[in-house]
């Protein structure tokens, strides 16, 4: 193994693979260094995984409804943190040329207290059950099943809910349960799963929503969804709406723009996002410190040998090459177990928390490239002393 890596590197580098020979010569140090890189990689992957889950759960809330344009309260940063929007805005919007249709959108969290003593928070989404074009794709065809009062679709991947609890639920075989003291009929299921703010989702008509939340009013939904007539640029309609609606109370944008603004807010201004973003930085620092420590010790330990090479006529870039060789070897060999362990941790965490966590190629590749860069920079720093000194002072 050691031999074949050596001859591979020899051919690749076109010189003796001194970095590898050095690293593999002191096994203990190599293993310690690899453990450090692996650990830093796991740290970064876990933080990125959580950040990714945060992003995905933010985005998936926006996938629960459709529409070209959203009208939200001007103080809203997320789907749920803003003031309500006056329904009169909807009627004003419907008068704007290019607007085809509109529905109020209600969103609120609801505690689902079950008979087995468990409870789950459901993010409840409600729209006008006649306006199928505003429904999530997975419920468009059956939205009208919600026309009757207190009919709902409930998330069968709700965190805390036994996996098979909502099997075979249908309009003819509804699952009947209590929510907030109201009896509801689940006439279908959703396949969403938990996020950061809620354990699962619930889909209802606007009328059912008002029953479940008696202190909410039909005249003040959370958002208003608009569709645009075919062949008209929604951006143009957004501009027209902004001209008509008062900017101090509502904001208007394309739905996708609202979602990405929410995402930016979650990751840069909310504590969770900031903390996990910070965790990524900590992971990188831990990795850099460990690798720098290893490489600078290694350079120091080989100072007299390097001085001899320098005396023989090897230029500075040769030593930089050795240390970068070591850095890349550490980065790659440390990355592999780091990736494998992280994939395992993702599965475990996703199982335990219900958060959507999965490894994707882009994330893996960026962490690998980042690790190689961080290791190489540490390596380059470690050779500084060698560059400055006369060979005679290093023996």
């Amino acid at each position, binding site marked *: 193994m050691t031999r074949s890596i050596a001859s591979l590197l*020899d051919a690749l580098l076109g*010189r003796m693979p001194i970095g590898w020979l050095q690293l593999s010569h002191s096994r203990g140090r190599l293993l310690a260094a690899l453990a450090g890189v692996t650990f830093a990689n796991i740290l970064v992957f876990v933080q990125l995984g959580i950040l990714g889950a945060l992003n995905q759960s933010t985005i998936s809330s926006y996938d629960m409804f459709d529409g070209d344009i959203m009208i939200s309260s001007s103080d809203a940063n997320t789907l749920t943190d803003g003031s309500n929007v006056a329904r009169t805005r909807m009627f004003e919007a419907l008068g704007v040329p290019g607007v085809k249709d509109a529905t109020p959108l209600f969103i609120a969290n609801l505690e689902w207290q079950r008979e087995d003593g468990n409870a789950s928070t459901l993010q409840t989404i409600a729209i006008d059950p006649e306006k199928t074009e505003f429904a999530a794709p997975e419920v468009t065809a059956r939205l009208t099943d919600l026309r009757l009062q207190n009919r709902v679709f409930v998330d069968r991947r709700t965190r805390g809910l036994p996996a098979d609890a909502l099997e075979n639920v249908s309009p003819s075989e509804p699952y009947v349960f209590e929510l907030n003291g109201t009896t509801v009929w689940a006439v279908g299921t959703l396949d969403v799963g938990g996020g950061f703010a809620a354990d699962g989702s619930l889909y209802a008509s606007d009328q059912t929503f008002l029953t479940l939340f008696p202190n909410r009013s039909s005249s003040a939904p959370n958002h208003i969804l608009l569709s645009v007539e075919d062949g008209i640029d929604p951006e143009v309609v957004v501009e027209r709406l902004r001209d008509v609606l008062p900017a101090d109370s509502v904001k208007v944008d394309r739905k996708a723009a609202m979602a990405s603004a929410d995402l930016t807010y979650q990751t840069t201004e909310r504590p969770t996002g900031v903390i996990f973003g910070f965790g990524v930085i900590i992971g990188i620092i831990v990795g850099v410190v460990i690798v720098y420590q290893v490489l600078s010790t290694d350079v120091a330990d080989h100072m007299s040998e390097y*001085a*001899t*090479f320098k005396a*023989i*006529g090897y*230029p500075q870039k040769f030593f930089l090459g050795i240390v970068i060789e070591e850095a890349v070897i550490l980065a790659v060999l440390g990355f592999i177990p780091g990736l494998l362990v992280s994939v395992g941790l993702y599965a475990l965490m996703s199982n335990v928390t219900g958060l959507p966590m999965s490894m994707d190629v882009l994330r893996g590749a960026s962490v690998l490239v980042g690790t190689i860069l961080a290791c190489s920079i540490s390596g380059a720093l470690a050779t500084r002393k060698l560059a400055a000194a006369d*060979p*005679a002072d290093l023996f």
Partner: protein
Amino acid sequence: MPRDDRRNDIGPSPIVAQGLNHWFGTGEARKQAIHDVTVEIDKGSLTILMGPSGSGKTTVLTLMGCLRDVQEGSVTLLGSELNGAPEVLQVLLRRRLGFIFQAHNLHGSLTAAQNVQMGLEVHGRADPGRQRAAAVHALSILGLDDRVDYLPANLSGGQKQRVAIARAMVSNPDIVFADEPTAALDKVSGTNVVRILKELGRQRGTTTVMVTHDNRILEMADRIITLEEGRIVDDKRQTA
């Protein structure tokens, strides 16, 4: 400095030092280690630097060998001025030299043959197979045929020193600098090492400058220069 015509018949001097002064330390601790050393070394000769410990032998050797920046005075090495020489020129000059140090300084992670190959790879790597063969050949000249793939840790002191010699000699250097190369060796292998150096020098016209205290070696030298407190106090030539 006027040329000494008597020695010019064997080619230009590979090393000419003139008015060489050198200091160590800074501020209060600054101390002059070399005082006005002027010397010209003959091509193909074996010159020995001797003198008590701390007299400046190593310093002179490293200044001549381009291992230490010249502070004051001049060293002309293989026709190039070292005082103020840019790093690129120094690197190129070093490739024409061979060094053997008191501490062998073999790379502990490389085998004997790999260590010797490093003396060849510095000139580029045209044909690794041939370079390996040349390294093995150099080791066998020094009687290490059966130690080619040993790591330094598994070699005796004398064997390590011979590997270092093979590394210094393998690329046919113009000059070999050796700093107490026999200090770590027993009497027999010490004398052997110098005999080998002298023989290789004779065959290839290599100039050798060697620091040694070893009396047994003195008789093999063409010239013996004695240093005391950083000054040349004696310089005698002998015919071996």
